[in-house]
């Protein structure tokens, strides 16, 4: 009889545990959901974003590591696609390789600004063994640098190559959407200095925000949708099959 009671007790506890947990840890719902829109056709390759990001976030200027970078694609289009030649140029330091004509080898040329995609299903968050990476309420993926041990699992896991090891701090680092700026109502540094408006940033839940309007009107795509990462960075006018 006693044993039955005990089993009953255990069963009650087990069932009630999730209910108690749900009641006690009720999270405060926030009404913000940030998103980033990149218009590929507007990018002119001035490199302002790359340099401004490094200034704002204290990333070493002369090393080829960057929170946001610009990729230039020069393409010799052939049919079939497997015979198409693609040349990729990357700007991730203060030196701008796009100004040199010799770097553009073929006829079809375009630029793709890149940054951390702040995936809703982020591989870097999933693989982090010490739980240093997490989502904020607004959907931004952050790295807790006090917890990060620099094991580089996230660098391997990220399909976009958006995370890197900071050689000075010996921990991984990546774009935070300029978290210290956006929480104060400012735009991220790269958006602020972009001269053509190729980058825009805003709150998807705010119907007056620029990203809401753009994404409602125009056709957009994301990088590597096949990875199932559900990015928060949306691209306009991107020919996905050509971009790495």
């Amino acid at each position, binding site marked *: 009889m006693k044993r039955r009671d005990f089993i009953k007790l255990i069963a009650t506890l087990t069932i009630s545990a999730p209910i108690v947990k749900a009641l006690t840890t009720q999270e405060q719902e926030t009404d913000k959901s940030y998103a980033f829109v990149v218009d590929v056709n507007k990018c002119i390759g001035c490199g302002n974003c790359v340099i401004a990001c490094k200034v704002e*976030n204290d990333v070493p200027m002369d090393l080829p590591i960057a929170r946001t970078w610009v990729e230039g694609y020069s393409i010799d289009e052939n049919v079939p696609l497997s015979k198409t030649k693609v040349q990729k140029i990357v700007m991730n330091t203060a030196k701008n390789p796009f100004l040199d004509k010799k770097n553009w080898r073929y006829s079809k040329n375009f630029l793709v600004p890149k940054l951390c995609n702040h995936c809703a299903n982020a591989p870097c968050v999933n693989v982090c063994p010490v739980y240093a990476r997490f989502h904020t309420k607004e959907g931004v993926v952050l790295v807790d640098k*006090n917890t990060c041990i620099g094991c580089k699992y996230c660098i391997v896991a990220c399909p976009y190559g958006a995370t890197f090891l900071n050689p000075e701090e010996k921990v991984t680092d990546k774009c935070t959407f300029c978290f210290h700026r956006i929480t104060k109502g400012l735009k991220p540094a790269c958006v602020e200095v972009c001269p053509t408006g190729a980058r825009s940033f805003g709150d998807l839940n705010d119907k007056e925000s620029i990203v809401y309007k753009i994404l409602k009107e125009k056709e957009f795509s994301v990088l590597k949708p096949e990875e199932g990462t559900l990015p928060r960075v949306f691209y306009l006018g991107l020919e996905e099959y050509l971009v790495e």
Partner: protein
Amino acid sequence: MKKAVIFGLAFAAIVYIALLSYVLIISMPSKEESKEKWIETEKEKEISFAGMDVCRECHFETYKVLMSGNHSTVSCEACHWVGKEHVIKKDAESVKIKRNESWDLCLKCHLKTPANKIKTIIPSEHAKGLYCVVCHEPHK
């Protein structure tokens, strides 16, 4: 015999409750706490680019000219660069663009390259030896 069973059950119950409370109470908040702490650290980081709304407070006339011209999408700090110091000291030195710098600065965007789709020039064919600002008003 009975005593041993009760003792064993009591021990099992203690272990169970201890594990349950660890999962529910201890582990979750400690993880959440370090996240909250990091979010605060991240928020405290220093801002370098002041943003156009701050510039507008004092330079409203220039702002109006800028907004009505071809450079309406270009923010102040895209050319004048970091405004952190200027906002505090209100001196011209840190944001001033000298006439001899205008060549480099304008060509950052207006140099003809294969991927550039805005109005561009080839420096060797366009008014060699003159500063851009001699003919062009950058705020318009």
